[in-house]
């Protein structure tokens, strides 16, 4: 019996819509408080953000954010808070860039080697936190934050003349040796700037994420541990092994975060390599509720807001307003989902109660005629998975 449940559809849409509307209302109030007219600002954002070159920018930025979101989401699904994506991707991109600059073999081989180097470095750096957690009981939140800082210091140490760095004295820049042109990844040409070819890999990563988590035994174990460690342990899952493995996967995914920039834009790791994307990834994963498509929407929204901030500044608004919008959206999403979840549970309990009462009245066992198998024990659904 596959009845289309209208109420459930409404519930699913309610949370994100509530969040975005809430964020817009708060932002409008902030704009009013600063003495600016909010609707013109929103108009500027939409108008500017939908231009051709803005779209290219948004797609390119979202590619990076999407990968960061996935990396964080792998941890979230396991109830692990990997704040270290930031350090992992920077260290990974740095060593990948250094390795790529030192080699000059055909791009068909070299590009995969660069990507693999990044994934391995990211995974190893993340594994430190995983191993510390299972052997010494160190919270991954603390260790990954410290590892972020350490990653910066390690890069700073190697990014010097005579080590792995090359100084451009006139430009005051220091960077790794540039990748040979054969290792520049393909681009999609548009009428303005090109769209990063790495977007293909990002989509692929999303598909793999979805498949592994929801269609494999491993993914099931991972989600089981995320929901209840003791229950998973009791059913024969080695929690320690899962913690280390998922940190490895999260780190490997984080290793990909710097790749669009490295292989499609900068071709070197210098002092101007973007930082802080790991933290954006946390926000994006929260927004997307760890769902591969949701993360994609979150990444696009984030990139759009950042693009729009440039337009706002040009029109004389404070660009910080976009920071306010972003912050409020994350808060609103968390609150909205919680509200909707609670409402959903109450509603389900009421339904089940009604079903039981009906069954009792007709003298039959509960749910015997219901092919969906939906009952009190099946729990709400995936939407309520614990995030942070």
């Amino acid at each position, binding site marked *: 019996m596959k009845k289309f*449940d209208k109420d*459930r*559809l409404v*519930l*699913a*849409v309610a949370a994100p819509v509530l969040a975005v509307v809430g964020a817009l209302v708060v932002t409008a109030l902030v704009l009013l408080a600063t003495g600016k007219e909010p609707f013109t600002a929103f108009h500027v954002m939409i108008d*500017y953000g*939908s*231009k*051709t*070159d*803005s*779209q290219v*920018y948004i797609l*390119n*930025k979202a590619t990076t954010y999407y990968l960061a979101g996935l990396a964080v989401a792998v941890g979230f699904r396991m109830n692990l808070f990997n704040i270290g994506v930031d350090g992992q991707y920077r260290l990974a991109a740095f060593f990948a860039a250094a390795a790529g600059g030192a080699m000059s073999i055909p791009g068909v081989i070299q590009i995969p080697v660069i990507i693999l180097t990044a994934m391995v470095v990211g995974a190893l750096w993340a594994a430190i936190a995983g191993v510390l957690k299972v052997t010494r009981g160190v919270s991954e939140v603390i260790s990954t934050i410290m590892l972020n800082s350490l990653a*910066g*210091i390690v*890069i*700073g*140490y190697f*990014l010097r003349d005579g080590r792995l760095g090359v*100084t451009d*004295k*006139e*430009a*005051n*820049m*220091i960077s790794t040796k540039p990748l040979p042109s054969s290792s520049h990844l393909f681009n999609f040409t548009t*009428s*303005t*700037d090109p769209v990063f070819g790495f977007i293909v890999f990002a989509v692929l990563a999303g598909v793999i994420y979805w498949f592994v988590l929801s269609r494999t035994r491993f993914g099931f174990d991972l989600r089981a541990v995320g929901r209840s460690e003791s229950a998973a342990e009791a059913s024969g899952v080695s929690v320690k092994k899962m913690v280390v493995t998922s940190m490895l996967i999260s780190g490997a995914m984080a290793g990909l975060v710097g790749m669009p*920039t490295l292989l499609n*834009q*900068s071709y070197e790791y210098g*002092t*101007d*390599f*973007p*930082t*802080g*994307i790991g933290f954006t990834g946390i926000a994006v994963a929260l927004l997307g509720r760890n*769902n591969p*498509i*949701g993360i*994609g*929407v979150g990444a*696009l929204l984030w990139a759009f807001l*950042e693009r729009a901030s*440039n*337009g706002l*500044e*040009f029109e004389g608004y404070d*660009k910080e307003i976009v920071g306010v919008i972003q912050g409020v959206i994350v808060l609103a999403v968390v609150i909205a989902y919680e509200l909707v979840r609670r409402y959903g549970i109450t509603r389900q309990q009421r339904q089940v109660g009604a079903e039981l009462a009906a069954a009792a009245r007709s003298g039959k066992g509960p749910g015997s005629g219901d092919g969906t198998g939906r009952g009190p024990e099946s729990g709400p*659904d*995936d*939407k309520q998975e614990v995030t942070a």
Partner: protein
Amino acid sequence: MRRVSKIIAAGVVSAALGLSVTACGSSSSSDSGKDKGVGIAYDVGGRGDHSFNDSAARGMDKAVKEFKIGSKEQTASNGETESDREQRLDLLAGGGYNPVVAVGFTYGDSVTKIAKKYPKTTFGIVDSVVDAPNVDSMVFATEQSSYLAGVAAALKTKTNKVGFIGGVHNTLIGTFDAGFAQGVKDTKPSVQVVRQYLYETDTKGFNDPTSAQGKAQGMLDSGVDVIYTAAGLSGDGSIQAVASKPGAWAIGVDSDQYQDPALAKYKDHILTSAIKNVDVATYDLIKSVHDGKPKTGTNTYNLANNGVSLSTSGGFISDIQSQLDAAKQKIVSGTIKVSSTP
């Protein structure tokens, strides 16, 4: 519900794609050709950093007032990418602003690219050299002014320990570090120089006063009594820490920080500032464009042409002025060669 949410998400994505197709064809930056005045792109910290960016802002304000031209300001944020910077310059040049001044060496690559796109617009780049016919590369011999700061620090310290705090451990800040250390050593070899950097590579180092405050506090606790901070807006934090310790001196950077109203509370602790006259360079460029003879090529600002200097406001260094003048003379005449790498 999962299935349903996927259907919705797919709907949203396809709707977004549909929208994006309809908006195709128009670009956010198109050459409008009109002369709207100066466009300026700041480094992180932006106007109000009491230091580097503010110096450029002063130069622009002066020119805007004098020539009665328009202006547009844009500011970099922490952790941006190359495309953000290109975009910013593109907006300004495309919006009809001429000249377009890029404040900070991080704009090097973006100026190279965007200057090619708008050959009729004059660009200015601070702290970097861009080889293009329509670019004015403004470089500053900051090691020379830092040398003088080192001389002042060596003469003023009572504990024989002075400190240097750099925002980011890069080549540019290295010139401040090198000049300062050399100035101290040449004046009083027994004085120890403690050097610390806020961040290894992250440009956030120019925008993080709390971190500078912590570093300065640590130095003060270990007996350092003169601290020279080259870290843009972060310098505020260091000056604040120094001001809380009687007898300690802060040396400001880029702007004359003694004169800054926002730092007025602490000005009795600001010994002097190693000034980098980005304002002069910015003003010169705007003026040259206004006069129809755009300044281009590499222009070096040093002690000899007063492009860098040591401020005297507050009068705290008037007792050692003769020694400072002597040192300055030796640098100008070439007797002293100041190294630009630590």
